[in-house]
């Protein structure tokens, strides 16, 4: 099990604010790693740097040993990193099915002229895409069946939008899946269901790096947990190790409360 993703001393600042400061960690193949930390601790910025939305000021990001730092988001995606967004970013007027089909953009290759003429190769590709989309949407039984696939994405419930975003991100067979708060805004039953689905993804061999605030989910799925505060990694290890780390408790509860807790 080699490292799929390696962050080496990645820093990113906005003006005077160091959002991420010399962050290093690895994600191994087939692993689920969670990043936790209070709001503003640099988790989403880390995701944005990894997925190419920002170029890091310093440090390097390696995907399977190859640097992806400074590449455009679409290039990073082509290399095999796929993501979801904390504030859902579906193509809201497009249908459920179309959203997933767009997700396959980088693994398909029908060109303009071939598409205009609807050549047999294009038809075969469309058929393959359709079958694959059925498989992906089928991971969420009963949620996206039949006529719902032709519904616009905005008509979906909040939880279903999150599910659809995951399906879209998986559509390109990513080597690494970044999930930014996959259960945010879900009720306990729904988040439990998503948790089961994330576990199922691991069984299918996906490697996942996720940001999550819901400790129940973090505990349930993570092989490893990384805690961040003020752009710095303050703890790393199993869920129990990190959850009981005094620095982590302090970051969440403040110094006095942390002292009370350990006293």
């Amino acid at each position, binding site marked *: 099990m080699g490292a799929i993703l390696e962050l080496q001393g990645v820093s990113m600042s906005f003006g005077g604010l160091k959002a991420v400061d010399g962050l290093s960690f690895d994600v191994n193949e087939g692993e689920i790693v969670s990043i936790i930390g209070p709001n503003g601790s640099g988790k989403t910025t880390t995701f944005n740097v990894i*997925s*190419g*939305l920002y170029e890091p000021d310093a440090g390097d990001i390696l995907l399977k040993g190859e640097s992806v730092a400074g590449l*455009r*988001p*679409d290039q990073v*995606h*082509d290399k095999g990193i*796929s*993501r979801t*967004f904390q504030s859902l*970013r*579906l*193509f*809201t*007027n*497009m249908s459920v099915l*179309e959203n997933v*089909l*767009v*997700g*396959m*953009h*980088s693994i*398909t*290759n*029908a*060109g*303009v002229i071939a*598409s*205009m*003429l*609807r050549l047999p190769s*294009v038809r075969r*590709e*469309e058929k393959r*895409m359709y079958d694959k989309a059925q498989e992906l949407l089928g991971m969420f039984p*009963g949620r996206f*069946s*039949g*006529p*719902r696939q*032709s*519904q*616009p994405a*905005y*008509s979906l*419930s909040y*939880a*279903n939008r999150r599910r659809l975003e995951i399906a*879209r*991100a998986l559509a*390109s067979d990513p080597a690494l899946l970044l999930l930014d708060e996959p259960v945010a805004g879900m009720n306990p039953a729904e988040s439990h269901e998503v948790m089961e689905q994330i576990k199922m993804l691991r069984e299918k061999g996906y490697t996942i790096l996720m940001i999550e605030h819901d400790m129940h989910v973090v505990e349930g799925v993570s092989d490893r947990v990384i805690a961040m505060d003020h752009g710095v990694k303050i703890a790393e290890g199993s869920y129990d190790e990190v959850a009981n780390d005094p620095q982590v408790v302090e970051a969440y509860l403040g110094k006095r409360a942390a002292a009370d807790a350990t006293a």
Partner: protein
Amino acid sequence: MRLAEITGAIQTAAGRVPRGVYAVIGFAIAAVFPLLNVAGVVETAWLRVGVVSLLFVMLSLGLNIVMGETGLLNLGYIAFFAFGAYTTALLSSPKFELQWPFLAVVVLSTLIAMVAGFVIGLPTLRLRGDYLAIVTLAFGEIVRLTIVNLQGLTNGPNGITGIYPPRLLGAEALEAAGSSGAAAWLVVDKPIEYYYLVLACVIVTSVLLSNLKNSRVGRAWNALREDELAAVATGITASRAKLLSVVLSAGIAGFAGSLFAYYSNVISPESFLFMQSVIVVCMVVLGGMGSIPGVIIGAIVLQALPQIIRQAAGAARSDFEVYRMLIFGILIVVMVIFRPEGLLPDKLWRREAREVDPRELEKTRQSLFDLEEGEKDLEV
């Protein structure tokens, strides 16, 4: 029954007919129209209105790619039309004593317009919204002013006259074989012949574009318009996809421009005013952005309707032309208020304009009812 119910019922009934049927009916009507002229029912002037309308249909189909699919406003679109028209005029007129074969001229005119699209697209596509609109507007004006002032090449404001009619493939061979009567058949010089030539081009273009719309490329354009950040994070190279749409739409405008130059025999900078760009934008908006049948209807309505009104108004109102733009303006304002999605809207834009589409909801409810899970709450 309330009016809404009646129109709703009509829409449901109309929705059951496959779209292809409407396309065939529409094109069949367009194909039969010139026969009325042959039969002596309508004047030849109306055939000319038909040809120009079809040329504008072509232009609208092209502009629809950037505006409707990719969501980029282009206010200098007519410049690409000018590139096509002038390329054709120079290669097939007494100006330089050239008469290239029709096919070569049309292909080259299209390519030159595409190159122009590439050149203007490359540096400007980083811009968004208003900025892009201003830059394209300026581009359109620069092209027009260049045409006016580049006297040596374009004859300036006088324009290029005496453009030779298109000679379709085989005309030369027939002439060489001595059968000039048969060759004359292949020279397009009567309105009815132009009409069918342009109609054939429009049909082919709209079929190709509707294939493209429902393909990987079309979906990528739609995704960029919906949410550029998400599209880029999903592996779509924004600059390439946008450039492709601009180049393709420029090519269609160049193609239309080439046919326009052949048809009108004379071209001058007056045909490529900023107002023409605006009119094409209006055609796309009126018809329904992103909808191929929509923009076809939009172009026909805005191009042919003024002629019909003028005819109806007759001698009584010979100054109709003065009010034409005023009526355009009012029409667009009314449309934007009451039917922002256009006459025959595309489903994406209908959703954009009206958060919930009652037709779609009803359809889903109906089909969910047939499923086992039909009893479950729709919302979960």
